[in-house]
Every structure is written in structure tokens, then in C-alpha cells.
């Protein structure tokens, strides 16, 4: 199975995008997307063929630690080639009620909870983070510049 690189779409999102731009189907209705945290290894663990958060390769933080996926607002895709989309505001997870482990990835998905949520894109964190009990974990708002924000492109 193909491993993901930073900012890459998952298979579910690739299909949604291609079916929409080739006018095969209507685009999905506008809705919120959510940013999850994953402790999957930085190399070779996260698979682009994982279509839902139930996939064993995702390794999402446990909600028993106070963790919850965060609603993520994104900019409109930029008028450029390659076109980019990224988070328009900062995101903060926690406060954690127990140490949740080490976050290596952020994974965008379609629902605030549940393993049936579809996966959209994966982002390798610039630095792995290991929050302690009581801590919050914050990611900066995106700017569209390389390395600043959760930036995805087709």
C-alpha cells in the first residue's frame, strides 16, 4: 500500500475531487471538517488507502485523554497552480486529562468523532509533540507559505 507524504490527500478525497472536477458527480455539500492527531510513525505507517478513521494505520489519539478533533476552517483554494488550501486559524487540542502520546501527524476528516469519519488529508508535523497532562497543543494559522500551516494541494 502507498505510504503518505505530507499534505497528501487520502484515496477518499482523491476520488471525491476527481469525480467533482470531471463532472461525474456533484461536489459534496459544504460542511465542517475536523483535524485529528495521529501517533503513526513518520515514515511508512500512514497509508493513503485508509478511507476512514477506523483504519489501523491512523493511530489517532484516544479521547479518554481529553483529546477531541478540532473543527478546522480553511481558506478558499488559492488561484494559483498548484492551488493550495490551508487552515485559516490556529488550532488547539486539549487540555489533556492524561498524556496522550506523541503526535507525528494531523489528519483531516469529515466528523468530530467516530471511526466512520472519512479521511481527507494527512500532514506531517514539523516537530513531533508529546503533551503532558494539563497541557494544550497548538498549531499556528496557515499562511500558504511552505511550512506554515496545514497546507494541502492536489
Amino acid at each position: 500500500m502507498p505510504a503518505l507524504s505530507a499534505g497528501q490527500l487520502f484515496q477518499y478525497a482523491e476520488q471525491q475531487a476527481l469525480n467533482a472536477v470531471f463532472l461525474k458527480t456533484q461536489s459534496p455539500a459544504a460542511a465542517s471538517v475536523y483535524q485529528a492527531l495521529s501517533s503513526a510513525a513518520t515514515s511508512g505507517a500512514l497509508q493513503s488507502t485508509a478511507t476512514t478513521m477506523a483504519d489501523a494505520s491512523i493511530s489517532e489519539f484516544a479521547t479518554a485523554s481529553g483529546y477531541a478533533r478540532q473543527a478546522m476552517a480553511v481558506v478558499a483554494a488559492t488561484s494559483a497552480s498548484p492551488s493550495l488550501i490551508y487552515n485559516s486559524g490556529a488550532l488547539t487540542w486539549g487540555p489533556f486529562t492524561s498524556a496522550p502520546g506523541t503526535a507525528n501527524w494531523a489528519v483531516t476528516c469529515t466528523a468530530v468523532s467516530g471511526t466512520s469519519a472519512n479521511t481527507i488529508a494527512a500532514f506531517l508535523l514539523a516537530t513531533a509533540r508529546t503533551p503532558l497532562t494539563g497541557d494544550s497543543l497548538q498549531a499556528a494559522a496557515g499562511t500558504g507559505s511552505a511550512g506554515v500551516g496545514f497546507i494541502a494541494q492536489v
Partner: protein
Amino acid sequence: VVAKSLVGRTFTYNHGEGLGFGEHHAGKPLIAEMRDMDLPSGAKVTLFAIDEDSKDPVIQWEDSTGQGRLTTVGEDFFNHFFVAV
């Protein structure tokens, strides 16, 4: 189990000793940076969802910087420290 019918309702986080949510669980004062991002006692929150898997409540609130946050709260903790407005 916290009833799904309560989703959308407002609650107040009331800690008897005035501790923040993270501070309570840490069992010690938080450093200033983390304290600013903690849920303080007395804060208003909205029950945003019931986690599909754990059935624990997910609350929505704003931190001291005005940023919207979602946090999962253990059911027992929610029933003890969160009071419906």
C-alpha cells in the same frame, strides 16, 4: 451516559476549588502558557456532541484568546463539574 438530547445546551464548568480543567487533571499549577489555554472554572461551554465511540461528552468553549476549542470530558467528570445553565 449523557443524553444526546442535551447537545446544544449551555453548561457552566464549576470547580469547587476554582481549578481549571487541565490544572485539576495535572494535580498542580500549570505554567503560564498552558494556563492561558486552560478551561477556567466559571466558564460557559456548549455540549457540542456525544463521542460516537466512547459516548463521552465533547464540549465547545472559547479560551482566553477567543479561540474556539473542542474537548472530550469523561462522563463522570462532566456530571460532577458541569452545571446546566
